[in-house]
C-alpha cells in the first residue's frame, strides 16, 4: 500500500511538474533561438504561410507513392501503435477519471475488455517496431540511447497496465503502483527525448511546409 500511495502521491506530482516545466522549457528555448529568415522574394505560387503549414502536417501523414512499398510496414505498424495508445489512454474509464480529476472534463468510455484487446495489439505492434529497428542494419547503426529508451518508457506503461488488469504475479496494489510509476517515468523523460515529437511534430512539419512553400513547391 505504501508503494501505491507514493506512486499516486509524490511520484505523480513530481512527474507532472517536471513534464510541464520540461515541455515549456523546450518550446520556449526553441522559439527564442535565432532563426535564419529567408528574405528572398517569394515565388509567384506562394500560398499563405498558415495554409502551407497545415498542408504539410497533413501531407506527411502518408508517404509519397515512390516510397510506399518500402515503408509500408513501418507506416502501418506506426499507425497501429499510435492509434492504439490513444485509444487506451483516452477511452479507458480509469484513465478518463484521472483526467477528470485534473481538468474537470470527461467523455464517454469504451468497455474494458475491448481496451484490453487493443492493448495487446498495441504491445505486439511496439515489439514489432523494436524488432524492425534492431534487425535493420541501417537503423541499427543510427539508433541511439534516446531511440531505445523512448521505446522502453512507452512500452512499459502498456505492459504494466495489461499485467495490472490481469492481476498477474503480485498483489494488485503493487501492480497498480508499478503502472503509475511507469507513467511517471514516461512523463519525466518525454520533454527531453524524441518523445517530444508529441508537440514538435507540428512545429517541424509547419516549418518545412512554410520553407518549401516560399520556394514555390506545390505541396
Amino acid at each position, binding site marked *: *500500500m*505504501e508503494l*501505491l*500511495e507514493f506512486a*499516486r*502521491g*509524490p511520484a*505523480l*506530482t513530481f512527474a*507532472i*511538474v*517536471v513534464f*510541464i*516545466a*520540461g*515541455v*515549456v*522549457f*523546450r*518550446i*520556449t*528555448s*526553441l*522559439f*527564442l*533561438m*535565432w*532563426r535564419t*529568415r529567408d528574405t528572398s522574394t517569394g515565388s509567384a505560387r506562394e500560398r499563405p504561410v498558415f495554409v502551407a503549414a497545415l498542408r504539410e502536417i497533413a501531407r506527411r501523414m502518408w508517404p509519397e507513392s515512390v516510397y510506399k512499398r518500402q515503408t509500408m510496414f513501418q507506416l502501418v505498424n506506426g499507425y497501429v501503435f499510435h492509434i492504439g495508445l490513444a485509444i487506451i489512454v483516452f477511452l479507458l*474509464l*480509469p*484513465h478518463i*477519471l*484521472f483526467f477528470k*480529476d*485534473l481538468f474537470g472534463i470527461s467523455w464517454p*468510455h*469504451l*468497455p*474494458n*475488455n*475491448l*481496451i484490453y484487446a487493443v492493448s495487446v495489439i498495441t504491445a505486439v505492434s511496439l515489439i514489432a517496431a523494436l524488432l524492425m529497428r534492431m534487425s535493420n542494419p541501417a537503423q541499427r547503426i543510427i539508433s541511439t540511447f534516446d531511440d531505445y529508451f523512448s521505446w522502453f518508457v512507452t512500452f512499459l506503461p502498456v505492459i504494466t497496465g495489461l499485467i495490472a488488469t490481469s492481476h498477474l504475479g503480485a498483489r*494488485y*496494489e503493487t501492480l*497498480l503502483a508499478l503502472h503509475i510509476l511507469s507513467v511517471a517515468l514516461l512523463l519525466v523523460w518525454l520533454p527531453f527525448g524524441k518523445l517530444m515529437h508529441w508537440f514538435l511534430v507540428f512545429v517541424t512539419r509547419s516549418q518545412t511546409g512554410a520553407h518549401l512553400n516560399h520556394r514555390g513547391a506545390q505541396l
Partner: protein
Amino acid sequence: MSDKNAAARGPVAPANTTLGEALSDRGVSRRTFLKFASYTASILALPPTAATAIAQGLANARRQSVIWLSFQECTGCTESITRAGTPSIEDLIFDFISLDYHHTLQNASGHAAEEARHTAMRENAGEYIVVVDGSVPLKDDGIYSTIAGISNLQMLEETVRDAFAVISVGSCAAFGGIPGAYPNPTGAVPISEIITDKPVINISGCPPIPEAMTGTIAYLLSFAALPELDHLGRPKAFFGEAIHDRCYRRPFYERGMFAKSFDDEGARQGWCLYEVGCKGPVTYNACATLKWNNGVSFPIQSGHGCLGCSEPGFWDMGGFYKPLSTAKNDPLKWAGGAAVAGAAVGATSAFAARSLRNKSLKAAAAAANAPATEEKE
C-alpha cells in the same frame, strides 16, 4: 445463557476446569459446542470436517483469560464484537473467554479495575491473551493518552510482558488508524511497532468484522496456535482476498459499466462503484463474503464504495470519493510555477546561446576586418 456481563464478572468455575465441564453446568451442551464449531470452521474457511476438531479443542481448553486494553480508540471495535439483543451462536465466544479487564464492559472501576487486571496477569502468567484496540501515542513521553495515571505505552508494556499472544483489534491498533493519520499530532503508532517479542495478530478494519475477531479467538482456543497470517500480520482466513475479488459487482467492472453517482440508475442495477471512489481492488477483508450484521449487507451492496478501512493509512489515500486511478494530491497546484520555471530556464538558455553567438560573430567580423554587421534575427 451466554451473556457478556457474565463474562466480564470473571470465571464462574475454578480455573483448572475445562470449558466443556464448566459450561455444561450452564446448559451449554457439547452439541452447542459443535454448532459453534461448524459456524467457526465456516467463517475461517476451514473444511466442514474441521468442526469436530474445533469442538473437541474448545471443550478441552481452559477458559481463556483475556485482558482487553483500550488506548486511542473510538470503542467501535468493542461495539462491533458485542451485540445487544437475543444471545446467539455469535455470543458464545463470551462463554469461552474470561474477559478479565475491559473499560466499557467491566463492572469494576477505578482501583478495583486495575487490581483485576494485575490479578489476571498474575494468575494466568504466560497464558493470557492481550487484546488491544486503539493506537499508542509516543510523542512527549506518551502524555496524550493516560489511564490510571500511567501512559498507554507503560500499560501496554507491563501487561504484555507475561502474555501468550497479542491481538491488535481494529485499524488503529493494527496500523495507527485515525490518530495516526496525517499529521499524526500525538505520534500514534501501531501496537506491532512497540511489541516485537510476542506474537501479534492484526485484525484490522474500522471496525473489524465481528466474526474476524471471534473466529480468530476461537481458533486460538481450539488449536492453541496462531492462524496463518499475511505479510501485514492479518489472518489469511479473513484477509486473504481482496474485496474486488469477491465483489458481486465485479462482472460490471469487467464490462466497463460504472455508476456515475450515488444511487443513480446504474448503481441500482448493480454496476461497479469505481467512479465514486471504491477502493475494493486494493483492500483485503471479508466484507464481500461474510458481510456485516450477520450477512445482511456490506458498504458496496448498500451502494457506497469501499473505504479501504482494513488497509494501512486508509485515511490518507487521497479521499474516499477519489477513484483509485487519480493522483492523490493536486499536482496541478504546481502547474503555474512549473510553467514559469520552464519558461525562465528556456528563455535564459536561448538568450545565453544567442549572446554567445553574437559574440563569436562579432569576433569573426572583427578578425576579418570588415565592418561589424550584426545579422538581424
